[in-house]
């Protein structure tokens, strides 16, 4: 498959680009909800509109009422979300949770997917237990209890945890903390007793929770996939989520670069447009080169995942790491090249810097993924 969008994908990209620019733009979404101190950190109206566009269920199979599209398509939407810094549950709900639910029973699918497809439901994923992403170690426990399980432990960095109608929770049902096996994934409903959220606003104005499970009783049918066999589902979810986060990151990087290059063409200093200064030109051109390469890594990872290749996992880490470094460069260069105004809340470049920071951290940073690349390469 050639590494560019086919005709259908190019059409989708056009649609997503104008939809997000019109409806998901910084002024109408990010700033709007942020300035109102919205406890969800995103707008339900836009989520409903995204459902009408067919975005929310694009990764859900056609048999389950979705569009049965792939990660290239999801990435197209995510890149526009990134470019517009659009706060939305798309990555967690439509990519991560939707990937997990592919492994769920028909009962689970029936319970949750229609709400997702309609844009009525929002899902969250609860994986991290330490401030750094370390999914190899899961200590949250789910003990057998009657027909079901009793969940104890705590999770953090649960994006939109308090707004979610359902949380996908990775818990340990057997073995010790670092074991590969013995993990089970659960779909925990919003109203589960003994679950409590401590909401915190993050630097990018999104809202995440520290979530406590204090003996949360779950039915056996809350299990996604096999008991003790959740690692595979977790990995599938993580790979999809990382590639998705990378796609969003390319959007953040591109958006930051574009407004910076525009600024270079407008701002005058020392009687010249600052874009005439060769030192800035070279840095901008280097950045362009990095963004192009990062985008290539992302589409390669998407195609490998859609093609079911076993190389998708390696490439997901390559993409996540490369994008983290690249978007980090884009926002740093962006603020610096804007100069003083780049430090003000009035300009958008700082918002890109904030979003990039949270996105870099989500599902593993550049160092985490570089380490994984080394491990998967056998060194």
């Amino acid at each position: 498959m050639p590494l560019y969008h086919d005709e259908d994908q190019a059409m989708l990209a056009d649609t997503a680009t104008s939809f997000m620019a019109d409806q998901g733009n910084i002024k109408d979404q990010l700033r709007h909800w942020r300035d109102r101190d919205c406890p969800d950190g995103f707008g339900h109206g836009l989520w409903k509109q995204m459902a009408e566009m067919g975005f929310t269920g694009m990764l859900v199979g056609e048999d389950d009422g979705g569009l049965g599209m792939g990660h290239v398509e999801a990435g197209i939407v995510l890149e526009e979300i990134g470019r517009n810094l659009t706060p939305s549950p798309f990555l967690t709900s439509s990519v991560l949770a939707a990937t997990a639910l592919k492994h769920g029973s028909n009962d689970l699918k029936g319970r949750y997917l229609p709400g997702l497809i309609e844009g009525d439901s929002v899902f969250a994923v609860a994986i991290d237990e330490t401030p750094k992403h370390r999914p190899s170690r899961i200590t949250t426990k789910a003990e057998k209890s009657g027909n079901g399980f009793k969940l104890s432990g705590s999770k953090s960095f649960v994006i939109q945890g308090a707004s979610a109608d359902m949380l996908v929770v990775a818990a340990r049902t057997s073995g010790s903390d670092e074991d590969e096996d013995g993990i089970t994934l659960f779909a925990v409903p919003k109203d589960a007793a003994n679950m409590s959220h401590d909401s915190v606003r993050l630097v990018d104005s999104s809202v995440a929770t520290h979530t406590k499970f204090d003996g949360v009783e779950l039915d056996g049918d809350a299990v996604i996939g096999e008991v003790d066999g959740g690692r595979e589902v977790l990995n599938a979810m993580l790979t999809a989520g990382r590639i998705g986060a990378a796609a969003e990151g390319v959007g953040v990087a591109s958006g930051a670069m574009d407004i910076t290059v525009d600024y270079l063409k407008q701002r005058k200093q020392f009687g010249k447009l600052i874009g005439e200064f060769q030192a800035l030109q070279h840095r901008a051109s280097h950045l362009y080169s990095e963004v192009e390469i990062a985008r290539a890594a992302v589409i390669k990872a998407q195609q490998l995942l859609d093609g079911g290749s076993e190389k998708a996992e390696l490439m997901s880490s390559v993409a996540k790491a490369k994008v983290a470094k690249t978007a980090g460069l884009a926002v740093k260069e962006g603020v610096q090249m804007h100069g003083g105004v780049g430090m003000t809340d009035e300009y958008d470049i700082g918002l890109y810097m904030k979003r990039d920071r949270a996105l870099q951290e989500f599902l593993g940073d550049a160092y985490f993924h570089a380490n994984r690349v080394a491990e998967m390469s056998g060194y």
Partner: protein
Amino acid sequence: MSDLETFREETRSWLEANCPAEMREPVRDEEDIYWGGRRATFKSDAQKAWFEACVAKGYTVPAWPKEYGGAGLSPAEAKVLRQEMTRIKARIPLSSFGIWMLGPALLHFGTEEQKKHFLSQIARGEIRWCQGYSEPGSGSDLVSLQTFGEDKGDHWVVNGQKVWTSYADQADWIFCLVRTDKENKYKGITFMLFDTASEGCSTKPIKLISGSSPFCETFMEDVKVPKSYGEGIPAYVGEINRGWDVAKYLLGHEREMISGADGGNTGTVGSAMSRHASKAGDELDPVLRAELAMFDVDALAYGAMGEKFLDEIKVGKAHPAQPNMMKYAGTELNKRRHELMMTAGGSRSLEWDSEETSGGKPSRGWLRTKANSIEGGTSEVMLNVISKRILDLPGS
């Protein structure tokens, strides 16, 4: 006992008697800092007592001559006082741009009457000053400033806008660069002093990406600035149309202050971040650990550079443009430091206003560092200066 040792003993007893225990506690928030001015209030009796004792002794500006409200200390004595204050962790009695910025300019360029008038006010904390340099259109290119003072004989009528006027919303007076000759770029600027309560003068705070800030925009609409405030007290420093000389003098002064401060900024991050991870029940990722190690090498090397720079400055061995190098390297290093601290801190450090992060200290601090390489001369300007003045590369 040498005179200096006697002075040290006297200072110790004086501090013991006059610096209240509360004033030896670390500064916790903005209110713990006393800035003076017409609208100032004291946070506590201790703060008031300490300030007043210092004013009486001339210790708000110990090295200034006595006739301007100082204590007339020699450099050696001033150093002893600093050492003794540091020893007991005494707070600075009065923070003030009047002391740090306007004072040095007046001491160097002012008339005798001007010094007596303004410096004494500053020493006694009566007037709080702010600085009016940058404008929206100027930036690195400061001399392109557009704020214009039209000459009306005994006064100017000033119109224009300044940005980055720190604490302008709380200041009483402004020292301000104003163009008074449109034909002459460098020799057409006057360094004016006027009351921010003047009619037509208004300020608006600037919200930064790191949150609220001391920075303001200051607008001047037909502000009438008299040319003199009395016999021998011109309303400007230096000569009319020669304010750029004053500004340059102060910029050099400021850059040295910033780079000197960064000279002490040698903090490594690896070991603290490793402990931080342990506390959270985790350990450093090996690639991140490597990155921290490479950073710590740079930080420790820069620490040596800071020490060397200060040693060389003292004896006049440093290249006169070396502060530009220190400012460049120090601020870029500090930005990298905070990037790594954010990374090592993980999702916890993303929190924007949680209690656990004391209201988002890591993230707000990180964002704030991004200004380091912009304010007081951008990194790009520093590199230009190094090219020109140190490497002697041809101008383009």
